[in-house]
């Protein structure tokens, strides 16, 4: 059973405005699927509807064969969908390591009485959560920053911390909303490599939103393009890149420039 996420005809209305119009999308294990489109196309809205942050008005979301449409966000997260946010949402006043440890809350086996008395499974679980959190910080090259306050980190590191936190959920599907925004080209390239190894090592599925076209083309297996909420294209990076509908949707933006960059890289 390799199909992780199966979205059918997903629509979202905000008042009278239709932000998402009948989006369908599949993500399999080991795949990185891109979701691109101009500003305000409805990409973040799609992630919000998948993860239960907002209720879709129409359509269905299946995850690992189970219908999860309209489930509350925490339940969806516990079922294995982790995400990051476009406008970074860390627990700002808490330490870096605490940020990561919090995502392991649903994995603890000790009750709150055991926590208060410090008995039973408490110590073993805490040790496990902590060492796992350090592992993930090492993985994201944030090891030395473990006891810093989260909002004291530079922007790029905050993005990485969000990913470490998402991984602490042990997700089967990882949804990244503009993970390389604010990173320089070198960092972006490194991150692309990192993402590919991650996908292979953890054998998870990845959904990816980004405006950095060369990055998206580099790492994605398949790409879904939406414009004004409406799906306009689907295919491999090379197909999407040459689709006239995609090119005209991005008209007036730096899509072509980004494409040329990618071709020369």
């Amino acid at each position, binding site marked *: 059973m390799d199909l992780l996420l199966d979205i059918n005809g997903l629509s979202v209305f905000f008042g009278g405005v239709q932000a998402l119009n009948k989006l369908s999308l599949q993500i399999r294990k080991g795949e990185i699927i891109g979701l691109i489109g101009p500003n305000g196309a409805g990409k973040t809205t799609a992630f919000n509807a998948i993860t239960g942050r907002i209720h879709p008005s129409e359509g269905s979301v299946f995850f690992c064969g189970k219908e999860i449409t309209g489930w509350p*966000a925490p339940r969806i997260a516990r079922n294995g969908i982790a995400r990051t946010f476009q406008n970074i*949402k860390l*627990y700002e006043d808490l330490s870096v390591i605490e940020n990561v440890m*919090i995502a392991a*809350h649903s994995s603890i086996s000790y009750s*709150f009485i055991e*926590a208060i008395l410090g008995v039973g499974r408490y110590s073993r679980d805490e040790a496990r959560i902590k060492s796992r959190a350090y592992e993930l910080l090492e993985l994201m090259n944030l090891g030395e920053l473990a006891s810093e306050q989260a909002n004291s980190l530079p922007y790029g590191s905050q993005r990485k911390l969000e990913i470490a*936190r998402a991984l602490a959920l042990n997700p089967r599907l990882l949804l990244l909303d503009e993970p390389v925004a604010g990173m320089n080209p070198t960092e972006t390239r490194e991150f692309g490599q990192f993402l590919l190894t991650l996908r292979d090592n953890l054998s998870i599925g990845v959904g990816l939103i980004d405006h950095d076209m060369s990055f998206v083309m580099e790492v994605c297996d398949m790409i879904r393009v939406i414009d004004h909420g409406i799906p306009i294209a689907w295919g491999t990076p090379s197909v999407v890149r040459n689709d006239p509908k995609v090119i005209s949707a991005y008209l007036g933006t730096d899509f072509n420039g980004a494409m040329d960059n990618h071709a020369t890289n």
Partner: protein
Amino acid sequence: MAVSRDRLLTVFSLFILFSFLAYADSNFSHYTLRILQNIAIFITLAVSYNLINGIAGQFSLGPNAFLAVGAYASAIFTLSPEEKLRSFIIEPMLWPLSVISVPFAASLLIAGIVTALVAILMAMPVFRVRGDYLAIVSLGFGEVFQVLANNSMSITNGSLGLKGLQPYTNLWWSWGICVFTVFCTLRLVNSSYGRAMKAVREDETAAEAMGINAFRIKTLAFAFSAFFQGVAGGLLAHLITTISPSLFTFMFTFNLLIIIVIGGLGSTTGSIIAAVLITWGGEALRFFEEPANLFGFQYEGIPGMRMVLFSVILILVMLFARSGIMGRSEFSWEGALGWIKNKLSVMKV
């Protein structure tokens, strides 16, 4: 190694504290002992109030109501059947409450549980929706409780109140419960449940995206906090031995709010320090309200002057030292020992 050292130091400090209390018990005046007990009860209240307001970030105005619920719950269960027969003169007490009488410790436990249940009932509608409704609902509950207590003659004896409680509360009970509350709260805060509470405070959306059920965590924090406020109510009832519906005014909540803000919202250490300072300071400042002869001038004393002073202090803290005494940091032996070493090395040079 560091863990067992810290544990040793903690046990040693507690030994010092209780030795001091033993000395105080046989040497200090009745009045001073009363202040010491008030301090313990206010630490208990402040630490548990800080959990919901400071750690979980949910603005409650409920402590006075919870104090009242706890006081009544425990008093109803410790009064002897004869005493109940004597005091309930307008309407006899409801059976089987009229014949039940349990030991003090059991009544404190009942007080905690009843209060926690009340908190859970309040949490159901309030935490289902996002937004700051807790303040309004918990404030309203204080008023509702007064009305209920005044009118449930056969349970609370109405506005006549409950009299003749045994003065069970002593130095040992109040400080024992105080230490127990601090111990439980610190453990909770340092567990995954405590981290989840802080996550909800910091960013509810991000907490939910990481699998944390914000409703459950907030309810847990609120019920935990209410439990200890109810127990403190039981202690207070058996300290003053007479309670009535109008006794637990909003002033309790106001005082506690001042304490946790001055201590540093979110810091248990800060709550403890501020509870001691404000409770003890409140007694020390009593002379403002009493007539005195100052350098030949006759000062009449102004009742309520201390509250004015505390309000001014609160405003000053809000303006110039928003993070209070401790900010959000906590006491640790590591930090304390480091600080002492630092001082010593400075002195040598």
